[in-house]
């Protein structure tokens, strides 16, 4: 997709919504998932080895029990019947109890250790995926909606959690029991064992079928649930518009359709299991009957003892019971596999705006910005900025005006490196932004975006987001500087007032003031304000402007505004039109002229009437 190499239909998140894949692609995906899994497991190698030892012990003890019971019947009881005393029997009974205790202790150790490993891996995976999402650039996030992000970090992680919690335990125990039982059977009686193990190839074939089928189905389930989540999250996020515009019935329709798709996918999975599990049981039960017949016949002819026959019947139960567990494991494995595939896809996405390998040194940014033959287009679109050369000396305050959609915000985003230009360079103090370390860049350039996002938390928390290490006085000082202090102090809990979900408890203007204070606190060399005062009333706006005069005295500023009152504080005005700078000069000169800006300014003065 956007961030992968063209033609690689499987790289990154590209293959996410396909449920039928070619063999090579699914092989590649599987390798990728396996690599991630290996990566996650590697740090726990020692613990895994320990785990393995524990489980061998535990399974050994478990396996010994039926054997001991058989021995009890064959060797313990006859002496008693002959009045030879019950010594052997007692020894065997003690052995059974010991085996049970060992099994219990090792089981507990196993559950704890595997639980710990599982949780550690989950934590690591969560961190990694979260951090990677944060690393990926905006162009990725524009396509990959927040619902998807959430679904990766919740339902997919849960699928893996399930695998780690119960699956691994089931598989290891089952495989060990399986192998152990087979060995015991062979030891007890080779003839009978051959009969008992005869259906094994059939079992393997059957399992292969199941694996193939459920592989497809589980991909489909994961994708279906992701769609449900995406729709759910989006309609809850925009519930205001949903209700005001009576979108509910249509939303319900869409949701029910997605929900039904999800159900159908789940249904398919359930049906496959419904065939597989009883199938295993059938094979197992037929084998038991065969062993009974053949074993009975052998016993009749004294070719085997009754004890051996009894042990065989016990073991066979144990042999096929874990098969069921293995198929259960397959279930969780498939669903975790599908999840892992998606997560590994996300982790594989490269940020389009990548961190430099060898960052250039820029200990102290003065704040001069230069566009050098910059061309830019959003992915797949027409060029938004065809060719731009622009020099903003350090300390200058530049106002950018122009019709909506002219590319003002795009220009600002290029300076803050939300995107990289398609051609040309953007330079800060002569250094290409692509060569700057992210931390350095963000310290030097801060942008107040058009949409003022506030996080759940207090007003102070939100302002402090600009500089997390700032003290309370700094927070208050920042609010004071831009004239937000009075309104904040008047809130019920002052700076400790909760702003609510996405700042919902603040009015639009209040949100803007908080966002502004946040940027001010960050104290960057280059400050970009993208319509940062558009929702303020006139007096508040004027207060902000007055503050700006002092704030901007010693730093570079790019101010985008439609209200030309802001322009009064600028040293220089750029008029943009279709991605080009069509006028450039001091406000006085432009107003005095006869160009676009002069016209705009006249229109604006008229609008004040």
């Amino acid at each position, binding site marked *: 997709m956007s961030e992968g190499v063209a033609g690689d239909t499987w790289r990154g998140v590209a293959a996410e919504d396909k449920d039928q894949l070619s063999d090579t692609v699914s092989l590649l995906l599987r390798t990728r998932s396996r690599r991630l899994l290996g990566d996650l497991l590697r740090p726990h190698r020692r613990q895994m080895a320990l785990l393995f030892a524990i489980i061998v012990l535990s399974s050994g003890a478990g396996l010994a*029990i*039926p054997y001991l*019971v058989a021995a009890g019947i064959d060797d313990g009881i006859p002496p*008693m019947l002959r009045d030879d005393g019950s010594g052997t*029997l007692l020894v065997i*009974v003690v052995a059974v109890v010991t085996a049970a*205790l060992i099994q*219990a202790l090792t089981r*507990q150790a196993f559950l*704890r250790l595997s639980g710990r490993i599982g949780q550690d891996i989950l*934590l690591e995976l969560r961190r990694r995926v979260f951090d990677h999402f*944060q*690393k990926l650039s*905006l162009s990725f*996030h524009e396509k990959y*909606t*927040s619902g998807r*992000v*959430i679904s990766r970090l919740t339902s997919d992680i849960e699928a893996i959690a399930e695998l780690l919690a*119960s699956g691994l335990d089931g598989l290891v125990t089952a495989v060990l029991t399986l192998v152990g039982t087979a060995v015991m059977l062979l030891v007890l009686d080779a003839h009978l064992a051959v009969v008992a193990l005869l259906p094994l190839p059939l079992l393997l074939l059957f399992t292969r079928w199941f694996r193939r089928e459920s592989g497809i189905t589980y991909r489909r389930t994961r994708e279906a649930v992701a769609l449900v*989540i995406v729709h759910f999250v989006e309609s809850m*996020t*925009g519930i205001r518009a949903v*209700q005001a515009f*009576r*979108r*509910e019935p249509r939303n319900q329709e869409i949701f029910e359709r997605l*929900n039904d798709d999800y*159900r159908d996918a789940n249904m398919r999975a359930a*049906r496959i*299991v419904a065939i597989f599990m*009883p*199938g295993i*049981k059938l094979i197992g039960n037929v084998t038991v009957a065969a062993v009974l017949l053949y074993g009975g016949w052998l016993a*009749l002819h004294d070719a085997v003892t009754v004890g051996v026959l009894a042990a065989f019947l*016990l073991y066979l*139960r144990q042999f096929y019971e874990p098969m069921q567990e293995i198929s259960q494991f397959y279930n969780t494995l498939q669903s975790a596999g599908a999840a892992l595939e998606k997560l590994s896809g996300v982790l594989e996405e490269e940020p389009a705006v990548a961190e430099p390998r060898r960052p250039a040194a820029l200990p102290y940014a003065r704040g001069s910005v230069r566009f050098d033959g910059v061309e830019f287009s959003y992915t*797949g679109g027409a060029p938004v900025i065809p060719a731009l050369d622009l020099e903003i000396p350090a300390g200058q305050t530049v106002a950018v005006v*122009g019709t*909506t*959609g002219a590319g003002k915000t795009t220009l600002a985003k290029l300076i*803050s490196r939300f995107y990289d230009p398609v051609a040309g360079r953007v330079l800060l103090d002569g250094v290409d932004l692509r060569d700057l370390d992210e931390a350095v860049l963000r310290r030097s350039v801060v*942008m107040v975006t058009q949409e003022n996002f506030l996080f*759940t938390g207090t007003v102070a928390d939100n302002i402090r*987001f*600009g500089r997390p290490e700032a003290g309370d006085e700094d927070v208050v000082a920042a609010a004071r500087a831009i004239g937000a202090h009075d309104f904040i102090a008047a809130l*019920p809990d002052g700076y400790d007032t909760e702003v609510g*979900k996405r700042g919902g408890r*603040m009015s*639009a*203007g209040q949100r803007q003031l908080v966002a502004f204070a946040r940027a001010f606190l*960050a104290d960057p060399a280059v400050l970009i304000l993208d319509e940062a005062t558009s*929702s303020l*009333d*006139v*007096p508040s706006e004027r207060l902000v402007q007055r503050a700006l005069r002092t704030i901007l005295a010693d730093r570079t500023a790019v101010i985008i505004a*439609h*209200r030309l009152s802001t322009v009064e504080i600028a040293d220089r005005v750029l008029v943009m039109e279709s991605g080009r700078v069509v006028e450039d000069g001091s406000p006085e000169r432009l107003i005095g002229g006869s160009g676009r800006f002069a016209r*705009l300014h006249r*229109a604006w003065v008229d609008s004040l009437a």
Partner: protein
Amino acid sequence: MPPQAGSTSDARRSSWNSLWRLRSYLRPYTRPLVVSWVAAVLGIAAGILTPLVGKEIIDGPVAHGDQGALLPLGLLALVLGVAEALLTFLRRWSQAAPVLGLETAIRDDLYRHLQRLPMRFHDEWQSGQLLSRATTDLSTIRRFLGFGVLFLVMNVLQLTTVIVVLLRMYWPLGLLVAGSAIPVVILSQRFEKRYIRISRQVQDEQGDLATFVEESALGIRTIKAFGRRRHVAATYDGLAGKVHRTSLAKVRLSSRFFTFLEVVPNVTLAMVLLLGALAVGGGGLTLGTLVAFTTLVLQLVWPVTSLGYILAMGQEAMTSADRVVEVLDTMPEIVGGSDTVAAPRGHLRFEGVEFRFPGAARPVLRDVWLDVRPGETVAVVGATGSGKTTLTALVPRLVDVTAGRVTVDGHDVRDLSLPSLRSVVATAFEEPTLFSMSVRENLTLGHRDATDDDVRAALEIAQATFAYDLPWGLDTRIGEQGMSLSGGQRQRLALARAVLGKPRILVLDDTLSALDVETEALVEEALRGVLADATGLVVAHRASTVLLADRVALLREGTITHIGRHTDLLSEVPEYRALLAQDAELDPEEALQ
């Protein structure tokens, strides 16, 4: 935020109730459910009978050298085995529909309910919390009601049958086996109490984590603008670490319990062997019976062991049911009345309106009187945070007045049905609120029958015909929250959406703030035509927008202090002048007083 579970016993009772209530979702599936249960019971029977046949073979043909009886008994074992497999198939196959149907139906209902819950609810509940209820919790419930309950009943059934069989075979040993259930029951109860608390905690913490993920996905631009990746990651680590710690505690708790459940049957087996052997020695028991006995006891190991998992699953399902029912039980405070306005004229009145946010000391609005006659347009002017948005939200009943009333054509808005009211009123919000779907769908949100001409007319009024030039025209999918558009483009789409379908009452909440002067003038020109017919309530910070209105209402300290024509107010009311006049000499601080 979701309240924490109260005292344990309370929480438990309500949990049972919550889960029990959800059973009604299974009603349409009575037939397949009955089939699956019958199949389950018969399957158990077949499973129990097989070892008994084994006993017969050992005691009969093998002991007496009776070759003729071997074959029929062997065949019987075969038939039983095949039957058990078939019954298992039948159970699983017929169970899928009810269980998945239950999950799907609850999810549909949950979604429907959430769409009805008022803004006040949604202001408080993060979608992450709601989502974890709609996904994780529902699948937990599904797993338990589908498989857990069945296994629980099957296990108990199997346990009791086997014990009865054992008692009949040789009662002293049977009694021993039955007695081993006592410690299991006692411990299960203690375990249950602690498990329910810890599993609720894990679920809540996971909800918090999901919430944080959501915020950091939606706020990605802000995080990037400030380069706060590490800071955000640290917070996330903290939350994830909490989940990690609680989950570990849960693992520790359950590992103790599960292990205990495994010891009991195995130790019982040893006792059976010892005492059984003694009995065989004493002649009270045949060897074949002992073999059958031990086989049966061994069969008990799995049901008892799995009891732990199932009980844990049940606890989780109960907490989940609690969390789901908690949402389902939240009454929508804003429900429509039964009135409809047949031919709306658009007469909007605020009569002594008061509005107070829950828990707030002072009302945001008080004693607001405003009469907007049909076809008239009134501008609402007030300082930042004075309550303008709140006032506009009262009209389509996104929030309800706490005193007084709002009427449309003489009907209290609370008496009107919501669809009727909301088709009379259309709002363009201060935040555009767009969805990641096609432009066309964004525009026609509630008007599914809007024609292409309607859409074009609306786009032209809002000066948003740029939409036709997007790569796929109106079918272009715009990014989440419209993020692939410029700020002004988003705002104009939201405006076009509001004017689409010619609503009688048009509410515009500062909807021209992101437009440049020229575009603004064009939009205003076009809006004048719309507002000539419709009733308008226009929130404005700028004089240019105020000029759209016939009259202006000044909102101060929560109430409307002045109403009049713009020019009159400008000359007569100093506060108004302070808010709207751009004279540079005006001292802003004084103006704010």
